[in-house]
């Protein structure tokens, strides 16, 4: 944990180093990779594979931007008319998640991007995740989720129940993402002008005002 976070306007503290929340990022990545993986074979000792780094980035974006997730969920609701989906969206706003849970990402050439080397190293050093090196010049594309990762995820929630949010949020996102490819998910994300039109190298802006209005409208119709 790094000290010297500029957290309180009253103290007007100056940020000494860029904030780094590597353990938290590692937890988020663990749940995304774990819950987004699929078994590679049959039997108790089989490993799970998470396919696609781009896919991981797309899912991560939806976890880090609750307002974009809400918008996707409202689209899902418009299709399925599942009241649980509407209730989930309402819960996102009731908990001020677009403000509180927001972890900004920067717009790069291939969309929202975050270097995951540090959290990945944390997970790899504990033998929870392993990058699957593929043939050719391709760098990491897939991740192997070790069986220990699943028991660790349970331990995490037992020891720190507040971290259960990451599990629940990842499950909610996975309801949208499923086994869709990263490209397919990013295509959806590019549909948001705020995301698409954000200048390269800048943080992707919030869309919570627009989504809140959409929620109000759909609740009115419900």
């Amino acid at each position, binding site marked *: *944990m*790094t*000290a010297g*976070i500029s*957290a*309180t*306007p*009253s*103290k007007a503290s100056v940020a000494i180093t860029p*904030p780094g*929340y*590597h*353990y*938290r990022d*590692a*937890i988020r990545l663990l749940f995304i990779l774990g819950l987004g993986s699929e078994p590679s074979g049959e039997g108790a000792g089989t490993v799970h594979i998470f396919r696609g780094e781009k896919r991981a980035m797309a899912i991560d974006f939806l976890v880090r931007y609750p307002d974009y997730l809400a918008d996707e969920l409202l689209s899902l609701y418009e299709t399925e008319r599942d009241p649980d989906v509407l209730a989930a969206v309402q819960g996102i706003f009731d908990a*001020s998640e677009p*403000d*509180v*849970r*927001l*972890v900004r990402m920067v717009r790069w050439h291939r969309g929202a991007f975050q270097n995951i080397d540090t959290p990945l*190293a*944390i997970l*790899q*050093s*504990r*033998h929870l995740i392993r990058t699957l090196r593929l043939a050719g010049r391709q760098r990491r594309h897939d991740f192997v989720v070790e069986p220990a990762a699943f028991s*660790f995820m349970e*331990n*995490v929630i037992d*020891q*720190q129940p*507040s*971290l259960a949010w*990451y599990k629940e949020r990842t499950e909610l996102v996975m309801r949208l993402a499923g086994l869709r490819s990263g490209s397919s998910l990013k295509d959806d994300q590019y549909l948001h002008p705020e995301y698409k039109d954000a200048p390269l190298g800048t943080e992707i802006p919030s869309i919570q005002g627009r989504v809140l209005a959409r929620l109000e409208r759909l609740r009115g119709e419900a």
Partner: protein
Amino acid sequence: MSTATTSVEDWIATIAEKAKASTDDVRAVLDRHGIEAQATLPRRRRLCLAALRLKGTKRLSEGEVPIDFDRGDLTPGLWAILSDGNFRGKSSLLNIVQAALRGEFPLHIKPDVWSWLTDIEVEFRIDQTHYRVVARKPLGEKDPLLVRATLSRLDGETWFDIHSGPADEAFANAVADNMMDEFGFAKFHAFNKVTGSHTHGWQAIASSLFVNGPGKAVFGEVVQDGMPLRLLQMFMGLPWVSTYTAASTAMKKAAGERERVQGASPARDRLAARLAAVEADLGKARSEVRAQVDRVALRRELVSRDRSVVGFQTKVEEERDRVAELERQASTARSSSANLRRTLQQITDERAAGLVFRELRPVCCPSCDNGIDTRRYASADADGTCALCGTTHVEAEEDPQLLDDLRADAREADEVLARLEAELEAAKRRRRGFEGERDAERRRIDEIKDELSSSEDADAEVRVRSLEAQVAQLAEIIAEHAPAAAVPATDDAEILKHVAKVTKDLYDEMQRDLLKEVSGHLTRLSRDFGIKNVEGMDWTANGVLNIQQGGTPLTFQSLAPGEKLRLRIAAALAVIEVARLRHYGRHPGFLVLDSPAAQEMTADAFAALMASVRTAVSQADDVQVVVGAVARNELLDVVEGKRTLHAKGDRFLF
């Protein structure tokens, strides 16, 4: 005849008894209708022509001839104005006398003669009082308004002017009032259903003193309203006559009004129905005129509301600026609050994650993936360093104060945000309030503009005004016909009926005697004057002169012109004679007979006429009769030479 002495009190009491009313009520009705009791007769007064003077210039085809006529020695008795031929000025002289006595110029004076005259002076006496009527005008002038007319009374040695001015109606009224006063004549009241109320006065009396042709009436020139009988009654001197005529007139008027009221009743119903209809229309029209359009007030309101709109708009803008500023502040506060809570969440998560990960020691190097010897962990623990990188552990991140401070800051930021949002909401509410008031003013302004520009409304206004005028007019007409006015008229009419009846009873018997006596004299004189086959004449109390001629009942109107003239002369003489005999008469004792023989009168008849005239004159030393006639022996025989004005041969009288 004893009734003539009935007192006024007895008279009123009798009326009250008959009318079943109080004496006070009777007095009130008498007062209201101006009916005066005339229980006794005023003293008889005599009129006598005293002098006649004329100046002027006759403009004849043969040249101008000056006029200078002067007879100042006229006295009571029989006078004759004679000429040997016709058109010698007899009638002109008599007409000038009549015009002067009536104060009406030129009256019957022929236009050419009137234009020749410059000075007319007629002196007369009423008993011992001398009067004079003088008319002066430029030669050739015919307009009476350019005539200077003066009525004067001789007071000792000097003439006192009673009235002086143009020979107009005012002068005629002045003369008439003076004469009526002098003779004590009351004006004759008459009510005619067709023409309404009339008052007859001196002109009617004076005209009856001049008999100059067949005429329309036995007495005077007016036949309406029973005038001949009334003149007869007045000249005969019947007490209560003027009282009766006044009561009778008032009664007819009151009854007439009642009749009109009753007769108007269906009309009133129609008017009332019309009024109701117009009032209904008015109500409708008023409701159509939105809020009683008062254009001046609306324009005033428009100006005031315009000002008001500007005021509200200013406030709206002020609040809008305040809202914008508060929104900016709130946005900042919201952002601060979100940042704080986000940071708090991230640090909390980070610590929780750190705790779970630190329990899970790395089993391999994250860089090279080679396994880590467990002994390295033992020595690192002992040194307080990292087993992998050897860095000394710093537990700085375990600063519990940091989270408390963050939480406090987050709460404070939330409070600030809540306060700002409350202020923002209040400012928005105020802005909305001012916007609402401003918009209401604007709507009212639009309405006013619509009202002002709407021609329909202007028409409706005009319609309302017009209907209001109609309602007012109808209400006025109905009020005029209101039955309320009929109530006193009904009561009055009832009492007046008894006034007239009681009064009439007072003199009826006497009048019957009188009329019988007059009728007798009239019959005799008519026969003497040559009206053939007159068997009898009966002047009834209704004023009708019934004549029995050759077994046929006739009236005055059915006689031949010659007979009419003779009957008129006979009537005038009969009245004078009977009045003299009875000592009641109030005849002025002045009579002018112009050309009495003009209508084919025989010598005997004319002689009889002149004899009668002479008798009338001789029996009363204060009677004056002037006869204008072509000189005939029958006349010359009865008139003293010095009492004649005789234009002999072709000469003119003036």
